[in-house]
């Protein structure tokens, strides 16, 4: 308790230094939070697409039911298809209506005759989508093939880049924040040199002198991490309505309270470690 009081007094008496330390920690953890959210979300989106590799083939107006069945049969013959779903004009209109139920103008514009019938084909492996797409494109009844593989592979390479950049940025920021905090705490130790000397002469042990400084560093870390997280939390709350309507059936884990709380816990833990490393470096360097 006494240690906490001393640490708190140290912080209060040099507010600007404390602010600098907290802000750099906040920046670090803001970047940690944002990149974690982006990487986790995109991984989830990718795995959603990967787990249901899908090609949608839209048929021409003049395609008969038996032509469509013929295409479906030839696909089944490849042995790579896990499921084929036929979506009739009526079914397509039903889906369209439910997606746009709040928009009467859009509903008025379209009826079931306008929408083409389609086949939704899933394969066991994402690589097999290529073969399926090829078969579909060769068929004279197919007007258009919507193929998600390109989207997914672009997404994968983007996520990979984001992951690497994020990791590099986090490492650089973590190192910078450690050094800034070491400097700030080292400066405070130098400021209190006389006091520390007196304490030593009055029989203070090394740890009695060190503890408040260590605690101070950890406190900066924790406050910074909580602020950085709060900022991300605010952003998530703001973006949640857009994200959920945009993502439709993909339930993003990153907006769930459990994920956010786990992220906070991990960040606070990391912050304590960073703060402890920084202040311990300062203590070793300036408290001989």
């Amino acid at each position, binding site marked *: 308790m*006494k240690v906490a009081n001393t640490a708190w007094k140290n912080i209060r008496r040099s507010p600007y230094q404390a602010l600098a330390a907290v802000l750099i920690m906040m920046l670090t953890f803001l970047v940690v939070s944002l990149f974690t959210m982006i990487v986790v979300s995109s991984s989830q989106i990718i795995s959603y697409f990967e787990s249901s590799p899908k090609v949608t083939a839209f048929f021409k107006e003049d395609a008969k039911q038996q032509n469509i069945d013929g295409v479906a049969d030839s696909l089944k013959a490849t042995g790579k298809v896990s499921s084929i779903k036929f979506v009739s004009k009526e079914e397509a209109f039903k889906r369209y209506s439910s997606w746009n139920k709040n928009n009467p103008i859009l509903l008025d514009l379209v009826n079931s005759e306008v929408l083409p019938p389609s086949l939704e084909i899933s394969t066991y492996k994402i690589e097999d989508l290529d073969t399926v797409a090829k078969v579909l494109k060769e068929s004279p009844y197919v007007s258009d093939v919507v193929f998600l593989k390109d989207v997914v592979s672009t997404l994968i390479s983007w996520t990979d880049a984001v992951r690497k950049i994020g990791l590099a940025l986090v490492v650089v920021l973590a190192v910078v924040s450690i050094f800034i905090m070491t400097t700030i705490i080292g400066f405070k130790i130098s400021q209190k040199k006389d*006091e520390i*000397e*007196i*304490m030593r*002469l*009055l*029989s*203070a*042990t090394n740890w*009695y002198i060190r503890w408040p400084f260590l605690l101070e560093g950890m406190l900066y870390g924790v406050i910074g991490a909580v602020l950085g997280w709060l900022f991300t939390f605010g952003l998530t709350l703001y973006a949640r309505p857009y994200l959920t309507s945009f993502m439709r059936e993909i339930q993003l884990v990153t907006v769930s309270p459990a994920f956010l709380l786990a992220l906070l816990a991990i960040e606070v833990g990391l912050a304590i470690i960073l703060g402890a490393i920084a202040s311990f470096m300062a203590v070793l360097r300036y408290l001989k």
Partner: protein
Amino acid sequence: MIRLLEVTKTYGTGTSALADVSLSIEKGEFVFLVGPSGSGKTTLLRLLIKDMIPTRGTIAMGNIDITDLPAKKIPDLRKHIGVVFQDLKMLMDRTISENILLPLEMTGMDQEEAEQKVEHILKQVGIEEHRHKFPIQLSGGELQRAAIARALVFSPEVLLADEPTGNLDSTTSWEIVKLLQDINKLGTTVIMATHNLEIVNSLDKRIVELEKGKIVKDNKKVKSLNEKDIHSEKKAASHHEELKHVDQKEDGNEDQEEETK
């Protein structure tokens, strides 16, 4: 109680602060350490709390050899020796009672118990009404008493006072010396470094005079005893050396004997 054996302290600059000082102080003694500025009084006191280490020689406090004491044990040593520093070394941003409480806090003593102890000591040195004031609000004499109070907080066996009357008027100086005498009467060994000859000469106490790092005068009868002690210690040490030598020799002989066998 306190024994210095051929203690030499030479600073990095080459200045010799103490040269071959041997001194023995018994439990409960009151010793004036006198001498001009730069004679080595403060150095001697600092050596006793291991604020610095001697270049040569040994210092023992009771049965403990301070010179061999590991850094970890220094806080324990300092609990047994109260020090009133020449510049007092009070923490200016803490009240008098907080200053005195500080050493007790370091030991993790129960807050209530520590406060009671501080209260008792404040009364003992006669500044209880100033407990909530900051050092800057106190007069020289009161500050000196506060510093003595802090030095006494662990009920130390030894009290070192470095020029405690240095900046005080004659009346206040006498009050402080009286206080130190009272503390001494309760059984604490007191070593007071001073160059206030008026006080030193008026009291019938042991005077150890230093000049250029050497003891030039030691007026106490105990002195001869001490010298004898030191002499016997030296003898013991050389005897120990001799024994080691003999042991080695004997070992050698045994080796030789074994070889001849």
